[in-house]
């Protein structure tokens, strides 16, 4: 697996040149008709990118056929040109993990519209609160979530704090103290 990372910048991330250990789950998904692209980003953990529309089918396959039955976390990333929804999966029976990313390019969104990704909360109950946290902090709307509302910030908070362009509102509660050194 180490020489895969060394070879990665030299060759393109095409499935034909990816060695077997890198593409196990990618191959399994491809056999079942779900297209996925391998990504080189995790520390030795296989990372795949799937399209947003393929998420329910891919997760169902990964949980049932590939035995990745533990959803560790659902998180979000505000990359420079995409919003990512990241799913970490773990398999208890095979002791193996997988990272699945769904990237929604920012250019495909009109202004002030949130990226939309199908929700896994009806399939995995973990995803319920994780998706609420991602909605609260990054602002990815999960379609099919039973009640998508803010979980960490107050219910009437405006904005999504962990975005790159978030400007925090400064009022009497969190402004700079007169003798502060910041």
């Amino acid at each position, binding site marked *: 697996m180490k020489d895969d990372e060394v070879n990665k910048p030299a060759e393109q991330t095409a499935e034909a040149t990816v060695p077997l250990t890198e593409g196990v789950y990618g191959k399994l998904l491809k056999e079942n008709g779900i297209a996925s692209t391998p990504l080189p980003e995790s520390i030795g953990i296989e990372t795949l990118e799937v399209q947003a529309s393929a998420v329910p089918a891919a997760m169902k396959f990964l949980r049932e056929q590939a035995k990745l039955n533990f959803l560790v976390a659902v998180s979000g990333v505000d990359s420079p040109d995409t919003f990512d929804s990241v799913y970490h999966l773990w398999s208890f029976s095979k002791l193996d993990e997988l990272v699945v990313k769904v990237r929604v390019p920012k250019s495909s969104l009109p202004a002030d519209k949130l990226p939309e990704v199908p929700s896994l909360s009806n399939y995995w109950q973990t995803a319920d609160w994780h998706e609420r946290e991602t909605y609260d902090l990054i602002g990815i709307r999960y379609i099919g979530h039973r009640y998508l509302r803010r979980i*960490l*910030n*107050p219910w*009437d908070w405006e904005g999504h*704090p962990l975005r790159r362009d*978030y400007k*925090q*509102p400064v009022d*009497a*509660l*969190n*402004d700079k*103290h007169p003798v*502060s050194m*910041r």
Partner: protein
Amino acid sequence: MSTSTTAVPEELKDTVTLSNLDHVIEFLSRFLDPVANLARSNSVWPLTFGTSCCAIEMMHVGMSKFDISRFGSEVFRATPRQADLIITAGTITRKMAPALITLYEQLPEPKYVIAMGACTVTGGMFNDSYSVVQGVDRIIPVDVYLPGCPPRPDGILDALLKLQQKIRTETYRDRRKKAYKQTAVLYVDYDTGRPVDDLVAEVKSETETVLAESVGNANPTQ
């Protein structure tokens, strides 16, 4: 206790009214204060209020190694109605701030606050945060500031001893001046997010101006 400034009616002048009792108590407090303050300072009962990591240190100080009950805090009361000290152990976020204010207002006088840990003293490591209140003294009055992240249990005991010293040296009159109108619950309008008292006051002043104008229109002056 009433601090009324209305005149006492003739027929009641020979009875003892509440305002007279006030003066008597204030006079007696010169002698009773040292005794009462000593008694009060040696039995300060805190409220169980721990939001984050400092709460662990507060639990330590309640356990047998650094025993806080040997300094008088025999029990940590779970209800604010029976406590007289809040040790704000933990970060106070903007979501938690109304709850803390409600708890503080539900404590009966005389009440004290120890701001424990860097987060409650000045916002601590969350100095630039969008959601952390930069110091709990922005929302409630604080008596003793205890820095540390988290402060050792010995530090909490030191702060408690300083608070006890402060209690022993205060007077009834100063304490009553500081006491403000207790509102256990602040009614806030759901749609605008403003206190209902403010809205009521606004409407009242508006009606007064409208009435004054209409009276002015009805009786036009030359």
